[in-house]
């Protein structure tokens, strides 16, 4: 930043002694106006005496008050210990937790506030109350100090040959740049060897997998799904998996029954619903919250996290909010026993978008 072309004349009156203690290096004033006519600092106001300064008798009273506060603190701490012992938590009794929390807390509060208020009161009422003045000095070191500091580096450079021996220096810099590489590579095994993109493309759903209720895992008959009802659905067998939550985070489905004439079905999805029963992924295509709120009258789904709305009558297309893609639809039908089953896995990855999603 070239200050020379600021266009402002450097006026020696500008700058307080903080800046001027070393006149050669006095900083530029920038654009401050130097008034020859400014109001003068009136100097320190007279000391405003406090009660204890005026009436020595009051000093005793203040003293008693302060030590009284410290005694309150002692009492509070003792009370807290007493409450810890006298009001234990009784298994199954939530009221006992509340009492324990309250009395222990109040005791500790008294213990702390007694000290705090007492100390502040002491400092304000009895301790010497006159303001003191300390001079500031410029933050930069003196020229002599700075010259010495420069000497240190010059000597260091000379004695080591850091600047002169460029081969050594550059190879050292090279080595230092490369050393952290193993540390970065080491983090590869934070996750297993599998390719995450492949995992994101598949869920537990497959041809013939029964739709079951979340969380019980009981299969759902098509006849159970009455008009206007909605079911939270998981694939059959999910509850027996060891990686249940990971699979559920992809496979959770919302099942609804609409009047078949309310559905606007595209030709390629003609056989994906069963008598107006449709199944959509419950994982929002925005950032993955469960789209759990179903509005029966309008057949809209609302994501409570960021308010994206999906219209079930139009194959869950986005009608409001930050999500871009419709919720993926799970193709369903019924098996021989009348239970709802999947016709296949989702035909596209569920959940939030990712870089490789459309590849």
């Amino acid at each position, binding site marked *: 930043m070239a200050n020379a072309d600021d266009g402002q004349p450097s006026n020696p009156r500008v700058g307080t002694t903080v800046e001027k203690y070393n006149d050669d290096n006095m900083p530029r*004033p920038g654009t401050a106006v130097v008034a020859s006519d*400014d109001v003068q600092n009136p100097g320190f*106001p007279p000391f405003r005496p406090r009660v204890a300064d005026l009436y020595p008798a009051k000093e005793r009273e203040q003293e008693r008050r302060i030590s009284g506060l410290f005694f309150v603190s002692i009492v509070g701490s003792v009370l807290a210990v007493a409450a810890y012992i006298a009001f234990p938590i009784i298994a199954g009794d939530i009221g006992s937790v509340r009492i324990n929390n309250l009395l222990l807390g109040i005791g500790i*509060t008294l213990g702390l506030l007694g000290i705090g208020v007492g100390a502040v009161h*002491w400092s304000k009422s009895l301790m010497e109350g006159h*303001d003191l003045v300390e001079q500031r000095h410029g933050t930069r070191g003196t020229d002599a100090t700075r010259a010495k500091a420069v000497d240190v580096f010059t000597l260091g450079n000379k004695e080591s040959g850091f600047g002169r021996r460029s081969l050594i220096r550059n190879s050292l810099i090279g080595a230092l740049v490369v050393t952290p590489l193993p540390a970065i590579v080491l983090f590869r095994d934070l996750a297993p060897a599998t390719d995450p993109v492949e*995992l994101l493309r598949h869920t537990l759903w497959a041809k013939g997998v029964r739709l079951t209720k979340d969380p019980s895992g009981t299969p759902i008959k098509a006849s159970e799904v009455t008009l206007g009802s909605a079911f939270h659905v998981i694939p059959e067998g999910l509850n027996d998996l060891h990686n249940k939550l990971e699979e559920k985070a992809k496979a959770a489905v919302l099942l609804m029954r609409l009047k078949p004439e309310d559905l606007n079905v595209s030709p390629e999805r003609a056989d994906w619903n069963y008598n107006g029963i449709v199944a959509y992924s419950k994982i929002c295509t925005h950032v993955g919250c469960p789209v759990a709120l179903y509005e029966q009258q309008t057949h809209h789904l609302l994501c409570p996290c960021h*308010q994206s709305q999906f219209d079930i009558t139009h194959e869950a297309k986005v009608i409001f909010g930050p999500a871009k893609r419709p919720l993926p639809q799970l193709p369903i039908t019924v098996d021989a026993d009348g239970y709802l089953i999947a016709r296949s896995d989702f035909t596209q990855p569920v959940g939030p978008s990712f*870089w490789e999603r459309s*590849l």
Partner: protein
Amino acid sequence: MTTTEDRPATSLQPTRGARFTGWAGNYIDERTSISGLVKELGRKIFPDHWSFMLGEVALYSFIVILLSGTFLTFFFQASMVPVVYDGSWAPLKGIEMSAAMKSALDISFDIRGGLLMRQVHHWAALLFIASIGLHMLRIYFTGAFRKPREINWLIGFLLFVLAMAEGFTGYSLPDDLLSGNGLRIIDGMVKGVPIIGTWISYLLFGGEFPGTDIVGRLYTLHILLLPAILVAALGVHMLLLIINKHTQFAGPGRTNDNVVGAPIMPVFAAKAGGFFFIVFGVIVLIASLFTINPIWVYGPYDPSPVSAGTQPDWYIGFADGALRLVPPGWEVVLGGYTLSLNILVVLAVVGIFLVVVALYPFLEAWITGDKREHHIADRPRNAPVRTAIGAAGVTFYAVLWAAASSDLIATHFRLTIEGVIHGCQVLLITGPIIAYFVAKRVCVGLQKKDREIALHGYESGRIVRLPGGEYIEVHEQLDDYERWKLVSFEDYTPLMIRPNAQGRITVNQRVRAAASNWFFEDRIAPVTRTEIEKSHSHEA
């Protein structure tokens, strides 16, 4: 240096206590030369103003966080191993959950004082971030970030970001339904990052979301890595505070060259030490009276259910609100690769906002061309454009923050969700502009008022009837001390465009002059001595 272990000589027979402190002081000094430090710092002066407390609140609540957090680590199990809950909280008995959630419930219901410590920890964390935010606003609006304190502003900014990171990692540890949903959103956002997003998410969660590693990993960050960096940065922050000495507001006798206030020993030590106990006490009082983060109501994490009105902790709200305000359809596929603009734009907006906050001192220094040291804190009105920029920034943040509660606003005020979102979208653009102009006008208005009072005094409320029947209100003059507070600020003029040594006017020059003109154009000059004398002779 003495070679013998001589006790300090005293002329009078000292009491036993004095003999002991003398001996102890000597013992320590001969091994640490601590007397030098005491001499340097013991009577250091700290100026006083209520707004200087905000930073103290942050420091003290951090100590409370360390103390209560240490207690919690003795009981918390950072493991996602599935267990069946069998503790005291009946509604969750027999439910499968992670060991982390179970231990958090046990801390709440089966350990005496455990619930209190959990709530102390959470309330203190909220107070920590809130007080850092207010402290930053105080520094900003009083111009206390100017030379030589720009670096300390940056360190303070780092502390603010670290505090938010600490808050988020801590919030995620109990592995309850809300914290799991928070992580799900993080996962979704990370996946939206081009090229590396999918892999970063995969590595972070140790496989597919949610996996069984994330709580343990966040725990290491939360109790080791982040606090270590935080404590180190806090140390440097305090060290620079001591080196630069505290700023003070303008007042009679105070100049840019001195510090006026109370010495550390004893007054400031008593006040600040006492204040630590007050902050601690108030946090404990709140924790014993008000429930925070009732994880037992939410239940363990499950990717399927979610409750309406889902809210992050308030300090993350602005980022969550930004996610909500993105208009529909912001996602494109380019050459087969998905570009999630609905996430990238949010990251960019929040990122740029934070970068501008971090770099503001350097921007202002460039615009004003001011290279001097400033130790007198500005009154916000005396830097109208800075105050207006601050007001615009606060408004921008506030709108994002409000947007994070759009659904609650809609239900409370019986509005439509869409209407609230659209309203916030409009406000996000117009709000800061309106706030900028309003704040600037208010500042200039207040400056004019100050001028008026400095010159003509204030209305006394005393009505006098003159012999001619005219009624006037008597104006009382200010004394010199009061007037000084109103008139002691610096006047600036915009930079002028001048050719440089080569006779050229650079683009840099032009931009800077324009910026300077914008910054200093509307400004009221401080009252001069002549004006005061004139007005007094006129009124006399």
